[in-house]
């Protein structure tokens, strides 16, 4: 049973440098040319690239949804506060009523209430301008029984008692009425809340879809790695080591995809912001600004995008971790299957 160790010389491999020693005791072996050592988990395969695409697309859509929801929320609160910041006293003309005096009185009464910042009479010229779209230019306002307005600016944090203001105005100026925009504000608040709720529901659905597609795409990408887990297991790797290798690989893959999606979404928002600032005072931008404010998603929006990117990276890593752990425990179960 004792033969020469260099029995592979005739294998035609041209390897004539065997030493007579047991492997592991050789001296002066030439080092292999330096190359980057292959990672234990192969860098990319088709499933891996598809995973990056899926993650990038889903992150992009999630971030857009998040940005849109944050935009709607900010806009809704802006509408609310802008409208509830003012109230209007309307004085209808009547035979024998000194309109100018009534306006001054109404303004005085309103100013006397705590929580009122100012009360401004809408003068003749401004009233004409308000009516211009309907009645044209060159209108003499005194010829028509036009109601006149006093705009009352309100301290939002400490609003006045509209009930007593309304009754005091009614007793002093019978033809006056106070519109605190409550009906509008209530409707807007309801609409804004509905919009934000719908937006949040869409965001939750979007995030759930993202989570599910990331989980399934990761599992798909992992499916091709079963043999690696098996080999590592059989050459004596500990479960902890195998799980860590896959976790690291898929964290990077997930972050790569999520960053691409997140950065693209941010670019979309920055692009819109840039467009609206460039087109300031044009009819299109005015329309967009009236609806959506300045089209910026704000710091919280960008933080949210960053959070989604981190979340998706972590999710990918966690999915690969649990897939490895399950795979290994299935191998152990098959070990026990005979029991």
């Amino acid at each position, binding site marked *: 049973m004792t033969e020469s*160790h260099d*029995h592979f010389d005739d294998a035609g491999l041209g390897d004539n440098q065997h030493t007579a020693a047991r492997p592991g005791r050789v001296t002066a*072996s030439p080092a292999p040319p330096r190359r980057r050592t292959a990672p234990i988990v192969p860098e990319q395969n088709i499933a891996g690239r598809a995973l990056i695409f899926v993650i990038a697309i889903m992150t992009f859509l999630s971030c857009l949804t998040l940005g849109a929801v944050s935009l709607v929320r900010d806009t809704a609160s802006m509408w609310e506060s802008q409208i509830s910041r003012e109230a209007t006293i309307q004085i209808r003309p009547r035979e024998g009523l000194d309109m100018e005096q009534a306006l001054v009185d109404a303004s005085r009464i309103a100013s006397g209430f705590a929580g009122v910042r100012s009360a401004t009479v809408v003068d003749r010229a401004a009233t004409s301008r308000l009516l211009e779209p309907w009645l044209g230019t060159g209108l003499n306002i005194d010829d028509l029984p036009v109601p006149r307005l006093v705009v009352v600016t309100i301290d939002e944090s400490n609003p006045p008692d509209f009930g007593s203001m309304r009754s005091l105005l009614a007793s002093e100026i019978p033809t006056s009425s106070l519109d605190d925009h409550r009906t509008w504000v209530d409707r807007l608040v309801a609409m804004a809340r509905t919009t934000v709720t719908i937006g949040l529901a869409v965001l939750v659905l979007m995030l759930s879809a993202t989570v599910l597609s990331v989980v399934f795409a990761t599992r798909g990408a992992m499916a091709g790695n079963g043999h690696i887990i098996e080999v590592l297991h059989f050459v004596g790797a500990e479960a902890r080591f195998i799980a860590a290798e896959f976790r690291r690989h898929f964290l990077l893959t997930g972050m790569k995809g999520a960053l691409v999606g997140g950065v693209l979404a941010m670019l979309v928002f920055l692009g819109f912001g840039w467009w609206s600032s460039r087109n300031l005072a044009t009819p299109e931008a005015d329309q967009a600004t009236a609806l959506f404010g300045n089209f910026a998603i704000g710091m919280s929006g960008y933080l949210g995008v960053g959070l989604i990117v981190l979340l998706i990276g972590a999710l990918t890593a966690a999915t690969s971790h649990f897939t490895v752990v399950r795979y290994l425990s299935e191998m*152990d179960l098959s070990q026990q299957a*005979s029991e």
Partner: protein
Amino acid sequence: MFRFENVGLRYGMGPEILRDISLHIPERSFQFLTGPSGAGKTTLLRLLFLALKPTRGLITVFGKDRALITRKELPHLRRRIGVVFQDFRLLDHMTTYENVALPLRIRGRDESSYRDDVIDLLKWVGLGERMHVLPPILSGGEKQRAAIARALIEQPEILLADEPTGNVDPPLARRLLRLFIELNRLGTAVVIATHDLQLMEQVDARRMILSEGRLDVHD
């Protein structure tokens, strides 16, 4: 090293694949495990490699009762057992050198500490010129030798080889056999599962013959 006493194994509720197996594999021994296809050779190797637990009977591995070995202890024990799978199980994205070095790498050893050992072992199995080649480019015999080198890199106390000559021509089979004999001469116990009679006739070694789940040992 390994001792089996009345070991039986069945998969699920199926019939017993192995019945009343009693054997002893001493240190530095050389044996063939043979028998017709489907006799349970691979199953017995899997028991030896701690990839399966017996349904009944007692297995002692390196002096430890198999039933008492925990999951945590398994990786450490597996490092003392080298396995050559029938289908090689080399990782296609790693070169021959990296495949052979894998068991050392997963233990966190620095490459500079094992590079020379791996190169030397690759030369010993005749793959000195093929160490930077990816497995898909290797021939069947070269893959087999790479798999053997990977099983040997941690200098195991026992080498289990499942049909190591199943995919190679007779001259190469003889060379592989000489490799195993040389390894045994250097102190490693060897178990070769094969149904290649020609191969067994070349060596006067112990034969463990499995037939219908029962084992006969011919010293």
